[in-house]
């Protein structure tokens, strides 16, 4: 078979390249929109709303009883009270981030592997689209969905705390952004997993890894509190390999009252898993961005090479 011998004029090549670039962006946006539509129309959204309302409602009730009935809460100094409020807020926020993580991981997995298994992907990918653009579109849609959920549910929770115990965290926007980043990390992992394993398995593995790094983070925190550098390294490494726990700790820092943490009472609580003592460095945030880019790139490669 002889190769084609025709040459293409440079101007024509430029025009063709422009046309291709132009096609990539609409593809990404169309698929992102489709993914948001899917998330909003499937039962997963109703489940998320119910879980969130239950969690925020329970926490509102809990916080209000705490100040109304618990005599010890009234006897606490304002610093101690703020510390307790910080802890409780972090605890509830952990619940929220768990819901967001579970929700997006179980959305991200089926969205790709499920579409390939059911045959939905066949008609879609036979269109003049690049596979990586479809994948990036899905990712963008999921990121928008996860971040939107964190913003709405997180803000509702902050308002509940403000109204019940009068506590407002020092950096609510930064902390919520870090929670959104945590969700993004987990769903990116879910996408990569779903290109190689079955939909349900990818959700389970993603959530399992999320839990494992959280536990490793707690273990590492205890190691640091007791001055055991070997045990502390477990947390450091797990935070590098899967940055969900690192981002969670950064978010907790944004929710925790700094003056309370600095007090002697706060020092006694070193290693406690629901207090954030340190903020995140720029280098770590850079690592998270790189991590997401690399995992998304790997997912694109795996998806691009896959026979459907």
């Amino acid at each position, binding site marked *: *078979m*002889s190769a*084609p011998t*025709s*040459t*293409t*004029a440079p101007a*024509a090549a430029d025009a*063709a390249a422009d*046309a*291709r670039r132009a*096609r990539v962006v*609409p*593809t990404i946006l*169309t698929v992102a929109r*489709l993914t948001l*539509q*899917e998330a909003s*129309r*499937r039962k997963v959204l109703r489940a998320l709303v119910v879980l969130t309302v239950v969690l925020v409602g329970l926490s509102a009730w809990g916080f209000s009883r705490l100040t109304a009935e618990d005599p010890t809460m009234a006897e606490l100094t304002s610093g101690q009270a703020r510390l307790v409020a910080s802890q409780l807020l972090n605890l509830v926020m952990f619940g929220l981030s768990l819901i967001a993580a579970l929700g997006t991981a179980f959305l991200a997995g089926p969205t790709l592997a499920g579409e390939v298994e*059911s*045959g*939905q992907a*066949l*008609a*879609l*990918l*036979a*269109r*003049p*689209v*690049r596979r990586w653009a479809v994948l990036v579109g899905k990712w963008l849609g999921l990121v928008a969905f996860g971040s939107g959920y964190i913003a709405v549910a997180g803000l509702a929770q902050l308002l509940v705390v403000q109204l019940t115990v009068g506590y407002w965290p020092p950096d609510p926007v930064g902390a919520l952004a870090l929670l959104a980043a945590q969700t993004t990390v987990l769903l990116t992992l879910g996408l990569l997993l779903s290109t190689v394993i079955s939909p349900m398995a990818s959700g389970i593995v993603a959530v399992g890894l999320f839990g494992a790094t959280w536990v490793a983070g707690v273990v590492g925190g205890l190691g640091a509190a007791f001055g055991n550098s070997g045990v502390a390294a477990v947390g450091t490494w797990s935070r590098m390999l899967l940055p969900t726990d690192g981002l969670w700790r950064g978010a907790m820092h944004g929710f925790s009252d700094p003056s309370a943490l600095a007090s002697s009472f706060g020092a006694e609580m070193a290693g406690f898993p629901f207090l954030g003592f340190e903020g995140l460095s720029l280098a770590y945030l850079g690592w998270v961005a790189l991590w997401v880019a690399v995992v998304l790139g790997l997912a694109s490669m795996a998806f691009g*090479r896959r*026979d*459907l």
Partner: protein
Amino acid sequence: MTAAPRPAAAGTVTTGSPAATDLAAAARLVADLPASPAAWCSGLRKRYGKRTAVDDVSFAVARGEVVGLLGPNGAGKTSVIKMLLGLVRPDAGEVLLLGRPSADPLSRARVGYLPELFRYQPWLTASEVLRLHVRLAGLDVPDAEQRARLGDVGLGGRAGDRVGGFSKGMQQRLGMAVALVARPELVVLDEPTSALDPLGRADVRDLLLDLRARGVAVLLNSHLIGEVERVCDRVVVLDRGKVAAQGTLAELLGRREVRMRLTGVSDAAHRRLEAAGTLVRAGDLFTVGLAADDVLAGPAPAGDGGDPSAEAAATTDRAAGAAADAVADLVTDLVALGVRVHAVEPGHISLEQRLLDILRTAHPEDPR
């Protein structure tokens, strides 16, 4: 099998020199080129583990031509289709769609596809599915035109309903509308009637005839041989991953036969019978297979411009006429040779018979 000659790719005009004469020459050159086929593949190979699914498959679908892809289960038909559309990466071989290499997504800009495994987003309505595909195709198709496609497949009244509530047959009809919505120049249909009732099958046949009339090329994979025989200009038969046969219906079905009951057959008459074609004798019953070469005035190769479907129809008509003449001549000669002719029964070989012949000849050990 021999590789098909590589067609000229569209949009690869030689305009390197600014000289006007060169440009004019190049323009003439391009104008003289035959239109690139709607689909063209050469030397396609695919292995799944140890099993070779597709082995050196080459064929072409000319513009406006309806080509049937036939073969037993597991012959590699769906794999070939998926390689054409870039859904499966071939281990070897080349694919051009509408003149562009298949590695370029734009090659699929004017291609419609109904997969064998048809499933559409259950949370979208039928009209939203069409809008999605129009957007992905990068086209601007007005809503009215999109609705018309739903009407064509009998879903005009269900445009606003969620796909999740559709039956399998309705989803396949929707798939047909999806394949047709972005003004395709090539439509690839993989078992388009597998979930349809007889009425739906008739609808699909009408749609196919309509596409042919509008000059849209179609590659049709179907188990329903009668359907293929009725609408296809050309047939490619795949067996165990290889092309077992391909040609126009006239070429494949050109072999007609005539059964005769004769007495008083002399040696000279016997020689005359043998000269007419392959002769099988069972007592008084003589069956003469008329060779395709005899009955075809000359098969017109499809795809050299013009309307291939009309050409194919004309070729079939010519073949039928020539066969009738051959039978009349034979009977006249036999009577002249003193043979008593008791019965003459011209026979037509159906595509189904021919397909079974091809597959059985390729694998005589299999009792298929």
